[in-house]
């Protein structure tokens, strides 16, 4: 993984000193709260319902064991012993004190981490496929480009006061696990007819109040132009994005109002002027960063030990876990293991300080000291050998980290909602608990197959409800918590935005409605059909009848 050189580390330390000075000026009253607000936001610090919340960047989701131990230490020292993995592969702390945040940032800097641009109207932390570097369907590891982009976008003097936040995602795989069509810019590594690698550039996707699937602005961008082309996109947006209405300020609205052809024309025109500038990436720099992500040395005998298959026959719990939480790795004999942070009784995405330490230790022991945070709010051990699967399972199980529900309805995405967020209409975490209780039969969950349930506590859509196969959106109806039910969304290659099924449903009735939805699917599915396929084939009517029928 990428290691800081003296430039990177100087910058991060100077950033902490700058923020410390800003906090001091705030405390002394030199800065008003209005003036301080954008400064703290640019450093991931929000004022929430009860306290400050700090969002720490995990660039493209990748953590070392050392970093994860540090995150555990921070949870213990500055928070109430836990952290929350977000849908953009970051981690949030809900209880830091303003005066202590600079010290917390110093601790992060000591392990090459930071909270830079995790919020505010700037280019946010870059996200990527959580199986980057190990996926069998991958053309090329996108993370070197994420890192190059992270550096270019950090403290960008021109693009720190954009009309609105700006999110970028990368994938190098054929199956899109990074939701590149729902970002302000999504980059897909592709190959052109000459066999050269470059990027397909997708712009103007996003969720929020106006969910829109991004459109292709350029089919093939040679790699050395990654930064110059991005600068052109950002410049057109910075100059022409709307600033009069924050709900219309994202780049998706600009692309929509200009039309993608006109938007692309303006970007290309701008790019013509700067494509030969100092932003032109040299191969030497690409190679330098790529070297940090070179595949690790592998055990050539990893394939020989398949005793875990026998163990699976004897131990049904292990076998379930193997089926749901263990994924194919591009190198035979290795596996990616998802640690579900969706255990019953725990808010989705929360992980305790002790669990972080345990996961970090297991990563050191079994997975080359690497852990990846996913946008589905889980953690992945990316390089586990076959021979270690049984031992890893039992260690995880001891720490309540082996919940075998990955990819099922219970592996839901859920925003913090009313419990923490000042904007929330509903307590999505409370609802999550009810859903766990109701759908507690694992065999039933497995029978339902891959099913993405996504919940947001308000229209800001942090829980991505528009792209859930089943989506739930909390709304306020005369002071009562209600939910809109959406069906048919997908954030993947078959990107689509879910449609409202009917009138909003009272919180108490949501579980019954979900039950009706999945039963309709079970009744109507044809051989091996997944939920989304059935829904797309039969349409909303049968679901509507069953949910609202009587």
């Amino acid at each position, binding site marked *: 993984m990428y290691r800081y*050189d003296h*430039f990177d580390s*100087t*910058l991060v330390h*100077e*950033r902490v*000193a*700058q923020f410390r*000075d*800003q906090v001091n*000026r705030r405390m002394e009253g*030199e800065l008003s709260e209005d*003036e301080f607000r*954008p*400064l703290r936001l640019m450093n991931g610090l929000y004022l929430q319902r009860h306290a400050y919340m700090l969002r720490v960047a995990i660039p493209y989701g990748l953590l070392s064991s050392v970093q994860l131990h540090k995150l555990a230490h921070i949870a213990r020292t500055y928070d109430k012993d836990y952290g929350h993995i977000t849908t953009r592969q970051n981690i949030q702390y809900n209880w830091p004190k303003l005066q202590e945040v600079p010290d917390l940032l110093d601790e992060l800097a000591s392990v090459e981490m930071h909270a830079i641009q995790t919020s505010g*109207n700037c280019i946010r932390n870059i996200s990527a496929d959580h199986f980057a570097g190990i996926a069998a369907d991958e053309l090329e590891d996108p993370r070197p480009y994420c890192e190059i982009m992270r*550096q*270019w976008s*950090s*403290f*960008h*003097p*021109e*693009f*720190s*006061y*954009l*009309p609105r936040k700006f999110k970028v995602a990368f994938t190098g795989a054929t199956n899109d696990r990074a939701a590149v069509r729902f970002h302000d810019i999504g980059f897909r590594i592709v190959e052109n007819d000459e066999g050269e690698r470059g990027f397909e550039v997708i712009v103007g996707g996003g969720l929020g109040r106006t969910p829109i699937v991004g459109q292709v602005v350029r089919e093939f961008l040679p790699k050395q132009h990654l*930064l110059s082309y991005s600068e052109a996109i950002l*410049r057109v947006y*910075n*100059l022409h994005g709307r*600033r009069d209405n924050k709900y219309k300020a994202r780049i998706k609205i600009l692309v929509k109002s200009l039309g993608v052809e006109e938007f692309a024309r303006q970007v290309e025109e701008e790019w013509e*002027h700067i494509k030969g*500038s*100092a*932003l032109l*990436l*040299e191969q*030497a*720099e690409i190679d*330098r960063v790529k070297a940090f992500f070179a595949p690790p040395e592998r055990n050539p005998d990893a394939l020989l030990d398949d005793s875990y298959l026998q163990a699976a026959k004897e131990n049904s719990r292990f076998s379930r876990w193997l089926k749901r939480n263990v994924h194919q790795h591009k190198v035979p004999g290795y596996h990616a293991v998802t640690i579900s942070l969706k255990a019953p009784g725990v808010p989705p995405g929360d992980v305790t300080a002790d669990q972080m330490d345990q996961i970090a230790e297991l990563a050191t022991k079994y997975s080359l000291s690497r852990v990846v945070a996913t946008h589905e709010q889980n953690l992945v051990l990316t390089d586990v050998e076959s021979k270690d699967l049984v031992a890893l399972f039992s260690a995880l199980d001891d720490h309540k980290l082996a919940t075998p529900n990955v990819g099922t309805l219970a592996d839901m995405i859920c925003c913090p909602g009313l419990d923490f967020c000042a904007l929330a209409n509903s307590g999505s975490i409370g609802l999550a608990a009810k859903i766990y209780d109701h759908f507690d039969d694992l065999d039933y969950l497995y029978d339902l197959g891959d099913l993405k349930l996504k919940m947001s506590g308000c229209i800001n859509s942090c829980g991505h409800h528009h792209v859930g196969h089943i989506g739930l959106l909390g709304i306020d109806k005369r002071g009562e918590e209600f939910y809109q039910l959406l069906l048919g969304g997908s954030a993947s290659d078959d990107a689509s935005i879910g449609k409202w099924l009917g009138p909003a449903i009272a919180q108490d009735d949501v579980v019954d409605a979900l039950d009706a939805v999945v039963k309709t699917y079970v009744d109507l599915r044809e051989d091996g059909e997944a939920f989304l396929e059935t829904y797309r084939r039969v349409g909303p009517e049968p679901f509507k009848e069953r949910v609202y029928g009587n």
Partner: protein
Amino acid sequence: MATRVIKNQEVVEEDFIWQVFEAGQDAPEEGSSVLVPLTYALEHGLDQFDASSLAKLGLILTGDDNPSEAKQFFERIDCIAVSFPKFADGRGYSIGRLLRERFGWQGELRAVGQILHDQLLYLSRCGFDVLELEEGKDPERALKAFKVFSVNYQPAVDSDQAIYHRR
């Protein structure tokens, strides 16, 4: 009355005050320093402003203006000011870079409006050499803002090198 501004990262006192010309207003007094809105200049030209009778003549641009249209006036002006009505309105950063890097403006580039301590570094990286802090803010105290970072990741007006050219 004088204005204290930050010029090339030092506090200086200007012994004149820029007046923004408004359409319909009488001809500016002799010896005054006048900023003409670009939109006005585009419509009426600058001929009505007699450079020899004015101390200084400049243009003022807003975020809605197209900086390429300022180019035709470069020969006749001493200064271009860009207004930032709110610090969150970041269009001026792009306008500054375009004026410097694309259109070749080498004279004074002045940031006016809600200019605060923590924007100074980025403004100067985008080509602004004169920064007029919002009223009531102490420019001396704000000078340390230029010293926050000793390296930069990306090229801008102040440096045509990206970090990877120095590694």
